[in-house]
């Protein structure tokens, strides 16, 4: 590899006369018309509007502000007050339950209500067994 490089470098060094000739080739200078046309084309390019600092800032700021406001509104949304049981209403319910119980006990003692009825409402319901149920037994 090094030997090849050396050989090509040697050969290139031997071509210095051609290099000299090529380096002396004159350049055709572009005309004034060419330059004017180039300037026209450059001017015709759509100008990329450079954003000013406040343009770079205001959109994110507004977005952030809106997001914050939305989050705040969600967090601070007035919720339905939890149902509270006032001591008065609690006593009313308790009294009603006690009254119902006392009434039932009193009627039981008077023989108006059977013992089973006190234990379960469903016990009084007659059960109808069909053949399928009976076969499973």
């Amino acid at each position, binding site marked *: 590899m090094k030997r090849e490089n050396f050989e090509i470098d040697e050969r290139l060094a031997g071509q210095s*006369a051609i290099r000299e000739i090529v*380096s002396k080739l004159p*350049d*055709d*200078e572009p005309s*004034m018309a060419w330059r004017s046309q*180039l300037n026209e084309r450059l001017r015709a390019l759509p100008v990329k509007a450079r954003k000013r600092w406040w343009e770079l800032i205001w959109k994110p700021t507004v977005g952030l502000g809106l997001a914050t406001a939305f989050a705040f509104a969600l967090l601070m949304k007035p919720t339905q007050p939890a149902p509270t049981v006032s001591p008065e209403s609690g006593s009313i319910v308790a009294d009603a339950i006690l009254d119902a119980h006392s009434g039932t006990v009193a009627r039981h003692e008077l023989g108006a209500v059977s013992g089973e009825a006190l234990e379960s409402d469903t016990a009084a319901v007659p059960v109808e067994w069909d053949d399928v149920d009976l076969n499973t037994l």
Partner: protein
Amino acid sequence: MELSIGTRAIRMKNDPATEQALIERCRRQDGEAFSKIVDAYQNRVYGFVKRMVPNAEEASDIAQEVFIRAYQSFGRFDARSSLRTWLFRIAYNLCVDRSRRYKRGLDETSIDVMGEDDAVYDVPDSRWDPQSLILDDELRAVVERGLEEMSDKLRTVLLLHDKEDFAYEEIAQTLSLPIGTVKSRLFLARAHLQKVVGVYLEGGA
């Protein structure tokens, strides 16, 4: 750095800091700074493109396109390569695109130089002395014709190295080629020109 005002070239002190300042301004789409860049490079870019594209009108258009592309994409110029390398890479790519459009391709021209005797390249002739060799219009025309005859690949390397004074590394960077390939192409291109000029000097042109 060579700067020119309009089409009149003037020499300026090579000052990388100045060029860097201009580049920074160009990144901000500063038209005045870009105009100075155009002044500095228009002759060389125009000359390179004219030798790469045979049609004069098309060459003028492509040379303008080089600067337009540069102006539009200055924001992406990362200064890893020099401004000169970057501009010539744009120029080369546009020339290649144009070649592809015309389906000329970039295949190597079958220049018959490799099989010949080395004496052809190492001409021990006093007429090869660069000092005594006057590049008159006739010889210039011969050289220009020799340039036209070779492939785009060889011509590009020859022009960048011998005309624009690019280093091998710069050419390799511009054309995305290994340095060895750059050297071998340069050798082939010069050998072809040597042959053409040799024929002319022997009175055969």
